[in-house]
């Protein structure tokens, strides 16, 4: 068995502006982040597809005490994509003071940014970013 969508291929997709995910052929579950087998039914008969980069914020926080290598404060949120999966990313273009409960339910457009390597990160990474719709 091989991974239908490796981390490397997922990252390459984002670099080209495409949010790649998986669809389970037997049960039709949409999967992101990618896995080797379907979290819903366990099948490894998975197919790569391009996901719509749109969804709504389900929850958020403002990180004010950060890990080494990060500059606080910044907003991190979970977004439920229109196709179902939940993803984690950083909310851009919004001041931390504006991050109130009213953010929950707001629609966003998903993008990405490269993140710097540190000694423990296995090289450079990629983080999803969320921009509020209608701004």
């Amino acid at each position, binding site marked *: 068995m091989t991974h239908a969508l490796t981390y490397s291929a997922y990252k390459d997709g984002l670099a080209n502006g495409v949010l790649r995910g998986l669809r389970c052929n037997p049960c039709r579950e949409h999967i992101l982040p990618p896995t080797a087998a379907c979290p819903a039914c366990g099948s490894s008969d998975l197919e790569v597809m391009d996901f719509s980069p749109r969804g709504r914020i389900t929850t*958020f926080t403002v*990180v004010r005490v*950060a890990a080494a290598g990060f500059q606080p404060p910044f907003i991190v949120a979970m977004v439920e994509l229109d196709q179902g999966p939940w993803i984690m*990313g950083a909310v851009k273009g919004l001041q931390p003071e504006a991050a109130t409960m009213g953010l929950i339910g707001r629609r966003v457009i998903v993008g990405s940014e490269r993140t710097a390597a540190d000694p423990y990160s296995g090289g450079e990474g990629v983080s999803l970013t969320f921009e509020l719709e209608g701004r």
Partner: protein
Amino acid sequence: MRKVYVLGAGMTPFGVSEKTSMEMFAEASLAACEDSGLAPKDIQALFVGNVLGDFEEGQINMAAFLAAEMGLSSEVPAVRIENACASSTVAIRNAALLVASGVYDVVLVGGTERTTVMGTPLATRTFAMGSHCRYEEPTGITFPGIFGMAAHLYSSRYSIPLDTLKRQMALVAVKNHGNGSKNPLAHFRKEITVETVLGSFMVADPLQLYDCCPFSDGAAALVLAAGARFRPRGRKPVVISGVGQASAGSMCLQKDVTRSRAREASVRQAYRMAGIGPDDVDVCELHDCFTIAEILATEGLGFFEFGKGGEAVEHGETSLKGRIPVNPSGGLKAKGHPIGATGAAQAFEIVKQLRGECGNRQVEGAAVGLVDTLGGEFGTVCNLVFSR
């Protein structure tokens, strides 16, 4: 399966320690051996929960060094177990099952951690390693951030105004600090008020400093045994009557973490094995790494309806004299959270409670106790039922 007795329990003070992780583990373990009436040479296997020894002191393969440090026989297999903050609970579950099944008659099991030597930036970075390293960590999410998101989700899902929830969360901290003030081994032994919590600085919205457990150092250990040679003497013998452990993927894959499927599955296993339900539990040590985490846990373990855990705190149902006393030790919040040692310290408290040795924080007549430990972002949950 044989009946597994807890013959001995030992624990170091929690807080900031000048001792190394291995020195602390040896101290807790030798105290547990002394408490059991057995000698280190009686130990047949060693299991050590430890999460970040590599980052803290540059130590891997700690278990083997510890076996030698404590004078165990060279025939003893020594294993370090890592499941984030649930490491030593998982170690106890594995040790108990190996004793129950007859592989060993006597094992030494516990955990140790010295988080404070890392300093806050590196500690925060390494704790964040409990999130998914490819799909979550690069966002800069921290552990307080994970539970901050859980708190906002909880407020939204159950339509509880954030101000109301924050007050309920503050009451968790007030209760656990009150309990911790009665525990001579606790990291923090001072009482606080709701105003202390709500006046402290914001760490990760909506969690303020006093919603968060501290970084701590410490170790705890148990001696477990079964078989004709190792019947406990005197005192009310404490047994491990049920164990459970379950797993989940990244927070993204779990979606709504206000209900942890891993916790619900794990505690179901433990209750079934012990032949009990949540109403039979007299005292519980659960994973209050953040105040919201205690509220979530009390619901997931079946003590309260989903969405009602905050109200239960307001009504004092989880206080020492309440319907189900939660975290009489002070919990992670006040007793401290040396992550690899946390589960073993929860077990230590329950053993002491069932023996009636807890002084002014004693839950009167406690006969059945539950341990609940969470590893990572709800990825591992491990539960232990103790009874006498």
